[in-house]
């Protein structure tokens, strides 16, 4: 910073508290700092819960970044950087009068940008009248060259439906635009969520405060989407296009999709057919009428846009031009984000709107013209020996607060200020490349940058580092002033623009510079309050009423990808449970003294099952004593063992399903899994066998209750159709496969016909399938092959047996097959019916097997030849699983690009 004292949002220049902060300040001091920090942690937990993102470390304290010393201005997105959001408990307060001015400025700004786009993609008078240099149009990364069908206008009704803008308050007290956020305009979801959590966790803050509410804006935005969505006959839906859970804004997208009632979709979930956009769901394709784009604009349609590769939805632009889907925003809005446009906005406003701009910009100089080139030579990179104190002549381009700057530095700081301090070099043609703070560059880096800039100065702008205002923020020891950037949001309601009376303020860490770069990594945010004042009464929007919705009982719009995730959640949970059950039985068999030969035979079988199930690797246990075996078993609880791997797989699915699981379930899945993993990490690797056994027994119990509790939560909290149905299907597949494999494995012993072996094997089967008690209640203690096999393979009343799984599976698939015409297309229903029939076939096959044993006089002999057939039955179950995947989940495979050969070959020979 340059020595000028930044404005303090809370305190005026004379040490007095500004009136609109007084009440809150009183409440804050009543609460006390420690409590405030604790509440801040609550908010962080609640946010992470809503977004499914991990809680960033040390909530309540902005991260210390290295930007003060590193050559690059922004917090370097190094590998260890946490993504995620925190919300500082102290809001940023805007008085009504100030917000009214900002509101007018933001609306004018988006009108200007809309007019600029209409011109640039239309007649281009900005070029014929020389209001914009051609480089800023033709080389602008956001300028997209799409085609226009004959008879159509290249222009949409409007480019912008939603807009966000970053503002900073300079030393003169005026809010200035730092950057326009047009193509993706993230953050509105977080602004809504911040407010929700603040009112929940800090209710005393809001007592007696007369604040503007956020919900009217949300309602208006929602209605404007529906208005567009309901024009067709069959109420096409809305979807939000996200790059997915690995993107930095996933949390924001989850919240926003929920708030707006949109399906959250990745490009692979969507497809264009016959000129319309469809979402692939488990019940076939669903029409999408409105698409909110939150993905890089140049990759939304690989057929027409220049983004390399095949990400995106081929034909989307064609569908949009044909009016079948409305894109919000039009992908071409990215044009206005190029920082090089900033210095030209003022004359453009006069030309396009006939208005003087209400909002100024942070000082920006394009280096591609004569003025910029002089600035480059004289201020940014003056000849080497030149002392930097010389006041540089500032030519008469509109530059608020510019000429005062260097003088301040000389007064307070005796050390020589490097040339260009206070300026940032940024790409002029579109963000995405790093910005450089001149003040922080060493000599070598400065020379390298100079060479790059001088090679093509028109590719760069110089931006002033704004001396942004500071706002009170909860620090480690007390309340500290921190620089803030304010983001405001505007939505078009069909006739006019409305600005959210609130927003999201970003808090910068000590020493972190305010630059135009989008935020990467951890963000500390603030709720933004706008005080209510009858003199600035909010514009009343008439409440629009959507036509009454038809009653729906089924969740028709479960996207295939989400269904797939639920299916695998079910399968992983069942794998976990099955493996834990096996370990439980093994431990029970290891509880006595050294085993008799007969017990040893049982143990051998069990250990083989452990290997088959992947619980243990190929450790040979046969020659071990009991304590030796127990020591070997200790490895199953290692952090790279099967249990830990499954727990991690399960946790990885949670963020994908954040918008579809209840909070209770997400918490349980993640927190319990973490707790079990921590226990595995901290266990003693050595120690006496008794302690290892106790540890393993305890862990097994926890794993079993983990699985059981989740099943319970699912059946108590989730509607039967939709996600839970597919989670159930996954479980049924996995459990039937486990039962069949166990039975096959146990019956497959070399000495099976020896007296007593069969009975022992059958007992083991009952034990592994947790059906001992059920069996005993029916047949007392007589164990024979046919009754055991009937109970485990056929009985559709035994929830641990394969018969039950397959029957349930069949019924579930039949349910999908018998949905009514309006929810699922006929082809999809027919496919479901076919799958149900295959489940029935496996059941028939098992019934033949059991019958074959029953009618044989020597049941033992008949049972001993079953393994082969049981394995076949298991293979059929896995085939059914694959068929289910193809029928309901198969997200469209990735397409290939032709014509501009991905392999680099020339498609057409040329002379």
């Amino acid at each position: 910073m340059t020595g000028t004292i930044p404005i303090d949002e809370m305190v005026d220049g004379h040490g007095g508290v500004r009136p609109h902060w007084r009440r809150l300040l009183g409440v804050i001091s009543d609460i006390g700092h420690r409590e405030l920090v604790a509440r801040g942690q609550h908010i962080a937990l609640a946010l992470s819960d809503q977004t499914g993102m991990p809680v960033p470390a040390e909530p309540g304290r902005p991260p210390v970044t290295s930007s003060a010393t590193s050559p690059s201005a922004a917090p370097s997105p190094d590998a260890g950087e946490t993504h995620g959001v925190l919300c500082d408990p102290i809001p940023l307060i805007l008085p009504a009068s100030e917000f009214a001015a900002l509101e007018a400025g933001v609306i004018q700004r988006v009108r200007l940008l809309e007019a600029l786009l209409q011109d640039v993609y239309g007649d281009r008078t900005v070029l014929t009248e020389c209001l914009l240099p051609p480089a800023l149009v033709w080389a602008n990364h956001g300028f997209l060259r799409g085609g226009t069908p004959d008879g159509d206008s290249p222009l949409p009704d409007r480019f912008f439906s939603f807009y966000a803008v970053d503002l900073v308050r300079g030393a003169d007290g005026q809010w200035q635009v730092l950057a326009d956020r047009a193509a993706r305009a993230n953050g509105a979801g977080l602004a809504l969520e911040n407010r929700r959590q603040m009112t929940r966790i800090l209710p005393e803050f809001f007592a007696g405060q007369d604040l503007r509410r956020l919900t009217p804006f949300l309602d208006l935005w929602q209605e404007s989407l529906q208005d567009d969505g309901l024009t067709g006959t069959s109420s096409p839906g809305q979807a939000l296009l996200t790059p997915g859970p690995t993107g930095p804004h996933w949390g924001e997208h989850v919240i926003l999709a929920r708030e707006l009632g949109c399906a959250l979709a990745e490009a692979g979930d969507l497809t264009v057919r016959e000129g319309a956009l469809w979402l692939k769901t488990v019940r076939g394709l669903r029409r999408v009428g409105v698409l909110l784009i939150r993905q890089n604009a140049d990759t939304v349609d690989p057929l027409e846009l220049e983004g390399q590769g095949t990400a995106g939805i081929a034909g989307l632009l064609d569908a949009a031009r044909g009016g079948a889907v409305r894109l919000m925003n039009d992908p071409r809005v990215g044009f206005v984000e190029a920082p090089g446009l900033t210095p030209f906005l003022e004359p453009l406003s006069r030309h396009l709107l006939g208005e003087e701009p209400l909002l100024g910009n942070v000082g920006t100089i394009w280096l591609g013209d004569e003025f910029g080139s002089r600035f480059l030579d004289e201020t940014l990179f003056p000849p080497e020996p030149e002392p930097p104190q010389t006041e540089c002549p500032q030519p008469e381009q509109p530059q608020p607060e510019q000429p005062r700057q260097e003088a301040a530095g000389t007064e307070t700081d005796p050390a020589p200020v490097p040339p260009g301090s206070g300026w940032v070099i940024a790409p002029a043609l579109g963000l995405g490349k790093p910005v450089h703070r001149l003040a922080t560059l060493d000599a070598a880096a400065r020379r390298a940058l100079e060479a790059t800039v001088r090679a093509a100065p028109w590719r760069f702008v110089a931006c002033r580092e704004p001396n942004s205002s500071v706002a009170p923020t909860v620090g480690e020891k007390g309340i500290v002033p921190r620089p803030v950037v304010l983001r405001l949001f505007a939505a078009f309601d069909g006739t006019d623009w409305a600005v959210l009376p609130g927003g999201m303020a970003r808090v910068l860490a000590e020493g972190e510079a305010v630059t135009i770069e989008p935020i990467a990594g951890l963000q500390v945010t603030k709720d933004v309050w706008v005080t209510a004042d009858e003199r600035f009464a909010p514009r009343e929007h008439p409440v629009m009423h959507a036509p009454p919705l038809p009653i729906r009982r089924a969740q028709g719009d479960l996207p295939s990808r989400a269904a797939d995730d639920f299916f695998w959640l079910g399968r992983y949970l069942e794998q976990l449970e099955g493996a834990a059950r096996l370990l439980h039985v093994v431990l029970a068999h290891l509880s006595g003294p050294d085993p008799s030969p007969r017990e040893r035979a049982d143990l051998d079988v069990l250990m083989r099952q452990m290997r088959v199930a992947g619980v243990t690797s190929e450790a040979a246990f046969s020659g071990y004593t009991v304590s030796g075996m127990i020591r070997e078993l200790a490895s199953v609880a290692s952090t790279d063992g099967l249990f830990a791997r499954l727990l991690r797989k399960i946790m990885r699915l949670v963020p994908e399903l954040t918008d579809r699981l209840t909070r209770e379930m997400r918490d349980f899945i993640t927190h319990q899994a973490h707790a079990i993993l921590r226990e595995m990490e901290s266990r003693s690797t050595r120690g006496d066998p008794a302690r290892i056994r106790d540890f393993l027994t305890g862990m097994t119990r926890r794993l079993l209750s983990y699985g059981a509790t989740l099943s319970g939560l699912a059946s108590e909290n989730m509607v039967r159709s939709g996600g839970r149905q597919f989670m159930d299907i996954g479980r049924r597949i996995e459990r039937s496969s486990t039962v069949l494999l166990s039975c096959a494995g146990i019956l497959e012993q070399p000495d099976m016909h020896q007296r007593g072996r069969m009975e022992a094997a059958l007992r083991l089967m009952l034990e592994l399938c947790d059906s001992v008690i059920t069996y005993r209640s029916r047949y007392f203690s007589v164990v024979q092959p046919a009754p055991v096999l009937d109970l485990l393979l056929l009985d559709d009343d035994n929830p641990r047996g394969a018969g039950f799984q397959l029957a349930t599976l069949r019924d579930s698939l039949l349910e999908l097959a018998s949905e009514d015409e309006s929810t699922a297309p006929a082809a999809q229903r027919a496919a479901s019916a076919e799958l149900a029939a295959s489940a029935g076939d496996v059941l028939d096959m098992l019934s033949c097997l059991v019958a074959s044993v029953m009618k044989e006089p020597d049941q033992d002999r008949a049972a001993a030849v079953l393994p082969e057939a049981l394995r076949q039955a298991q293979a059929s179950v896995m085939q059914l699983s694959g068929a289910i995947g193809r029928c309901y989940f198969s997200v469209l495979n990735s397409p290939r690009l032709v014509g501009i050969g991905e392999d680099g070959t020339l498609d057409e020979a040329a002379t």
Partner: protein
Amino acid sequence: MIYRVRHATSYTYGRPVELASHVLHVTPRDFPGQRVLWTRLDCDPLPVRRREGTDHFGNRIFWLFHEAPHDRFDIVSTSEVEVLFDPLPPPEATPSWEDTAILAAQDPDASQYLFDGVMCATSPAVGAYAAQSFPPGRTVLEGLLDLNRRVFSEFRFRSGVSSLRTTVADTLARKEGVCQDFTHLMLSGLRWLGLPARYTSGYIRTRPPPGQKRRLGADVSHAWVGAWLGPEYGWIGLDPTNGIVVRDEHVVLGWGRDYADISPVRGLILGGGGDTLRVGVDLVPADEWDRDPALQALGAVPPCPEPDIIT
């Protein structure tokens, strides 16, 4: 001169393609010096959706969408085009290349061809190579003709040595390549100097060796450079592959910043694999076409041109 041109593209897929969307640049465009008399596009299988229009540069495009499985895809574009470009102005009458650069930077349309597309990045080495043809004060056309001649005489035509990934610096170092490479090289050099240049895609007339009959489909796609002489004289075509100025033996399909803007067939397909592609072009004067039974057997010439497709 009136030509008839037939551009046939044929994909055979090893495995069926389930979904396909394509953007085609296979129809000649109108502009001063070229008039499209009639044109038609046939494709097999028929698409579920077909639209036509223009791209950003004003070239004719077709969008085709297929949603039923198919294992081959044939596109035939047939047009009749009248070509006569104005003779070149006297080179010494054109503005100096420096003035042309200044005019270009202010021209609302020509200025767009000062900037690179995705396939043809600037290279200081190529810039220096082109600069040898443009000593201070030389008129722009003199410089352009000199550069065109130098590329023709110093570079060897050789197919198979380059691909779409070949950079202009590679071409300069190897001193060989095909029309695409020479065109990209010249574009890059001219833009380095601040002169607008556009990638022009089209066809050139070929003649069978003396005494031989012409083979069907033996012609090929061609590419050359569009160069700008200032607002007064506008655009001319320079063919560095043949070292000539475009006059009446070239038919223009369209232009862009580089090949990527104007590739004849660009598409996304789902499925397929083990694909083969065959392209055949016939560019023959219309009267000759009517006398050649083999060409006439190709059909595809509408008895009377449909008025609505004459652009």
